[in-house]
């Protein structure tokens, strides 16, 4: 029986409401417990900050498009930019890559930052075995993946015909087949349109041939999600990402959730998670008069409790954009003319990959940077606004500590702003320079573990230090009562933990990987009666349209690494 | 005997080669599938080569004896083709233009009739090249 006692740290645990009190955390057999015996291994956390293991609600770390990025960008392997984190082989395997790190580096780097769970943001169902192969080779981290549904032909047809139960049965079947956790929607309808070289840029643009609109798709999927009572809500990347003036389309998308209420047994309160909302908060009519729409967007989010979001903070790095939003990547490439990869996936989705340089000497990049921070600083309920960089789209996840620094320190924001060539224009197009709010450690704990865990419906396992949760703990070298005045020291503390503990095992000590225990693949198992109509439809589409046989489509059990099912029953 | 003429050689897959390879590289089928050169009839005429007789193919990096045929998948005059495999690789230049991929297609060869020369087996060619061939057991 392994026992661990973390003594005298400053505890920040929003789920149980502990705000920096000095207390002990006990872990037995991998779970948080009230107390342990005197034989327990003791970690002295005095003068340090203690939080549960970090939870990333939206990150592209595993699977086909991530790997397309790795494959097509040999120049990314040693690239650092201004990033200070280095590579030293610490774990069992090499660590390679900056914006699109290898699976091994992904596991190690998250662990060093105190993260123990990530949610892969987009899994093309047909390519699910690939995602699971990468999970196997990503050490330490527990992982889940969201299959994409927003351009799926089955869903189009069921939603168009108002067959909610059939759509639910299909979604449940696909979650089981792909070992996925929840419903991801990317540019609803737009990616299908892209298969013909077109797009849907508003929620009312009809999808070619299928006679359905993005609004109908989103509402249909919200209804499906709540009918099933899935742990997470619908997770949306809406239409018209990345374009000036799109905040109106974003508000349109958010309003689709207005009449819905969350129904689930997992403590989740939202019905819609709008991911990387920074990319959706743009005003202006062109890149010339481009400006922030953060205020309008966050006013709406603040007022509507059934919505959560993550920020998708631009980190001002050279990075690699990748999304199931195929038309977006094509248009981005039309702007920067670097290389472009695209993969349209039969009956289901598409994707694109384009390298991108967020240059602080380009006005638009500076404004994008400001918008992400504004969104977080305008937020009233930080349990509903989460830190992400939409890794690697707005920047690599290894920059989270830098994002935390910007949010905790006005001085740090000013310093970055001062390095921008078009500083005055950035200031004119946003409110960032006038915002003096500085977030505290409790708020950071909300944004990086408690909030995401609750939104994912996983707060009983992750993002919390309450009894029964997994014994995942991050201990940072930060004296909560005496925070350093130099913001760089805050960043450094979040970059490398004093300790990261995964299920009661110390995996990182003083920023070094020292153990690689087992990890889990989380997925949602919906128990419901088989739906004969849906099974018939599935068989028919596989016979006529897919190029893979139905019997080879679902991920074989032997290819799912250490599965851990979140179960729910639907009558 | 006519004057030597430089042809442009390529080497590519063929279904016969694919089948034979799976049967085995020491099989009769593999030998039959791969020890031939496909040429344009006009070139054969000019070079004094009778159909289905043996020829010596020489390149900058080696030489090999194969049987000349007019393939079903025809070559234009000046182009010739040996199916991917052991015989072709006796003459394929290993130069890669710094890409890793050898010059499998598009290199100059001379082809001359040698009706009385014997075709070697795959094993004889490969083991022979590395000094291991001990003759037919």
């Amino acid at each position, binding site marked *: 029986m392994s026992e661990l006692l973390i003594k005298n740290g400053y505890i920040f645990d929003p789920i149980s409401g502990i705000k920096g009190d000095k207390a002990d955390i006990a872990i037995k057999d991998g779970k948080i417990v009230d107390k342990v015996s005197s034989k327990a291994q003791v970690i002295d956390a005095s003068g340090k900050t203690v939080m549960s293991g970090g939870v990333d609600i939206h990150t592209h770390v595993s699977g086909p498009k991530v*790997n*397309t990025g790795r*494959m*097509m960008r*040999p120049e990314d392997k040693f690239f650092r930019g201004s990033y200070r984190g280095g590579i030293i*082989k610490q774990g069992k*395997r*090499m660590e390679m890559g900056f914006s699109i*790190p290898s699976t091994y580096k992904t596991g190690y780097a998250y662990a060093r930052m105190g993260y123990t769970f990530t949610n892969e943001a987009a899994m093309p169902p*047909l390519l699910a075995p690939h995602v699971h*192969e990468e999970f196997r*080779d990503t050490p330490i981290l527990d992982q889940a993946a969201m299959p994409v549904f927003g351009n799926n032909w089955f869903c189009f047809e069921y939603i168009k015909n108002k067959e909610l139960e059939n759509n639910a049965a299909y979604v449940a079947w696909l979650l089981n087949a792909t070992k996925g956790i929840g419903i991801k929607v990317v540019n609803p309808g737009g990616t299908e349109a892209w*298969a013909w*070289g077109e797009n849907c840029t508003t929620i009312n643009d009809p999808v070619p*041939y299928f006679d359905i609109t993005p609004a109908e798709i989103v509402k249909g999927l919200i209804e499906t999600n709540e009918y099933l009572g899935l742990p997470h809500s619908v997770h949306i990347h809406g239409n018209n990402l990345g374009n000036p003036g799109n905040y109106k389309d974003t508000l349109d998308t958010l309003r689709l959730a207005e009449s819905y209420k969350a129904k689930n047994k997992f403590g989740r309160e939202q019905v819609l998670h709008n991911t990387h909302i920074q990319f959706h908060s743009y005003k202006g009519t062109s890149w010339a008069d481009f400006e922030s729409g953060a205020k309008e967007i966050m006013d709406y989010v603040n007022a509507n409790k059934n919505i959560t979001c993550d920020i998708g903070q631009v980190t001002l790095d050279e990075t690699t954009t990748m999304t199931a939003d195929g038309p977006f990547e094509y248009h981005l*490439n039309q702007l920067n003319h*670097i*290389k*472009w990869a*695209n*993969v*349209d996936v039969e*009956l289901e989705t598409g994707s694109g990959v384009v390298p991108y340089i967020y240059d602080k000497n380009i006005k638009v990049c500076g404004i994008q940077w400001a918008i992400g921070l504004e969104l977080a600083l305008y937020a009233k309920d930080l349990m509903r606004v989460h830190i992400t960089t939409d890794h690697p789209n707005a920047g690599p996840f290894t920059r989270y500590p830098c994002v935390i620094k910007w949010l905790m320190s006005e001085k740090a924001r000013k310093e970055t702003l001062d390095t921008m060539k078009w500083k005055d224009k950035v200031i004119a197009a946003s409110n960032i320079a006038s915002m003096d709010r500085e977030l505290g450690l409790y708020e950071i704990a909300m944004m990086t573990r408690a909030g995401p865990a609750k939104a994912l419906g996983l707060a009983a396992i992750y993002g919390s230090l309450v009894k029964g949760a997994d014994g995942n703990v991050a201990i940072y070298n930060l004296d909560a009562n005496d925070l350093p005045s130099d913001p760089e020291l805050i960043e450094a503390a979040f970059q490398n933990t004093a300790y990261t503990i995964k299920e009661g095992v110390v995996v990182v000590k003083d920023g070094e990987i020292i153990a690689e225990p087992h990890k889990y693949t989380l997925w949602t198992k919906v128990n419901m009666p088989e739906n004969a109509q849906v099974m018939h439809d599935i068989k028919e589409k596989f016979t*006529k*349209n897919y*190029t893979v*046989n139905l*019997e*080879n489509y679902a991920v074989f059990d032997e290819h799912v690494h250490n599965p851990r099912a979140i179960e729910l029953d639907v009558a | 005997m006519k004057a030597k003429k430089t042809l*442009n050689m*390529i080497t590519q*897959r063929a*279904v016969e080669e*694919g*089948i034979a390879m*799976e049967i*085995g*590289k*020491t099989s009769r089928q593999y030998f039959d599938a791969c020890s031939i050169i496909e040429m344009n009839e006009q070139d054969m005429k000019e070079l004094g080569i009778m159909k289905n007789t043996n020829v010596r193919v020489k390149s900058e990096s*080696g030489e090999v004896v194969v049987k000349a045929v007019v393939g079903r*998948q025809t*070559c234009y005059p000046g*182009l010739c083709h040996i199916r991917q*495999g*052991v015989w072709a*690789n006796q003459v394929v230049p*290993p130069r*890669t*233009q*710094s*890409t*890793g*991929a*050898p010059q*499998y*297609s598009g290199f100059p060869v001379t082809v001359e009739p040698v009706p009385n020369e014997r075709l070697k087996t795959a094993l004889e060619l*490969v*083991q022979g090249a*590395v000094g*291991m061939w001990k003759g037919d057991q």
Partner: protein
Amino acid sequence: MPKVIENVGCPYCGCSCDDVRITVSDDGKDILEVENVCAIGTEIFKHGCSKDRIRLPRMRQPDGSMKDISYEEAIDWTARHLLKAKKPLMYGFGSTNCEGQAAAARVMEIAGGMLDNCATICHGPSFLAIFDNGYPSCTLGEVKNRADVIVYWGSNPAHAHPRHMSRYSIFPRGFFTGKGQKKRTVIVIDPRFTDTANVADYHLQVKQGHDYELFNAFRMVIHGHGKDLPDEVAGIKKETILEVAEIMKNARFGTTFFGMGLTHTDGRNHNIDIAISLTRDLNKISKWTIMAMRGHYNIAGPGVVWSWTFGFPYCLDLTKQNHAHMNPGETSSVDMAMRDEVDMFINIGTDAAAHFPIPAVKQLKKHPWVTIDPSINMASEISDLHIPVCICGVDVGGIVYRMDNVPIQFRKVIEPPEGVMDDETLLNKIADRMEELKAKGEA
């Protein structure tokens, strides 16, 4: 009672067909019947249950003969030689599942050696072009369901990918392509009048080695400069170029499948680079995708697996031990062989002795040579050690990546010959043994 196994994957070409039907004998050892498969696939399954399969590793003796040894001895010999070598090379993986390819990455990371796959001599130039220009592609089902214009350029599926045209491209009736071949225009660009050209609507008999010029000509037309074309480019008449370009422009969904005809000839990666540029151009006015006709059923696999492991798809230099390096031309197998840089060679799941130019084989043979392969082939017959393994898709399953990078889950259909290991198990044992030797200070 014989048992029928359906939905079996075929371990031959990059089509990675997964609809094969196999009838297996009562005892699970023999394959009685093979259906839904091309002539080549049939031979693979037949060979799989051959009584002549090698069952034990064989070590070359001083007199040149081979002697059976145990797997344990073979593993130890390989591990010791790998640790002793300064720059060992493991090359192949045309016929290995991804699990084996992942294990190979572990072996060579521990050994500190070079790791390369058959792409190095096939679609390696395509990787170089992708590094420079990206890869606007799609899955094969998109072609089946949507494509109305198909281009095969420097590829000959009638021979190299026998079911490609019927399953994915020209003939199938898909969702938006209910009329199948009748509504598709097929363009074949090849210097030979191939069997594929025989079923095409247009055969452009490009002058061998001049593909780049022809791509350039098409780009000129797409950019609106068709009038300025010379009367003939790369052996193709101006009128034909204009006519075919018009078909490309008017496609609803077009796909270009390219093969060795472009990667093996002068220009190499530049031919692919411009093919990608043409695809990008065409997307301004239509919808176009491009795809490499990957040769083997899982030769996309090592590129995928090693990209997530190291960030590079091939030509890996792991000798630095704490970081990987890739530089084709320098770290590519044939180039290293020709410079005689490699001091041990492991040929796995391929036959370098048959498929490398012979001067490269001669160079590699100067050093210890291990062949890991189920069959007798040219490599096994010149190697110092031959270790037999299971045949992926026949007596071991696993994940493989089809030419469009779609993972296909292969099944085991018969029991392997008693005692024969699969690639993954064997390679992990070699890695374990190296770790053991290192820990003991014997290396």
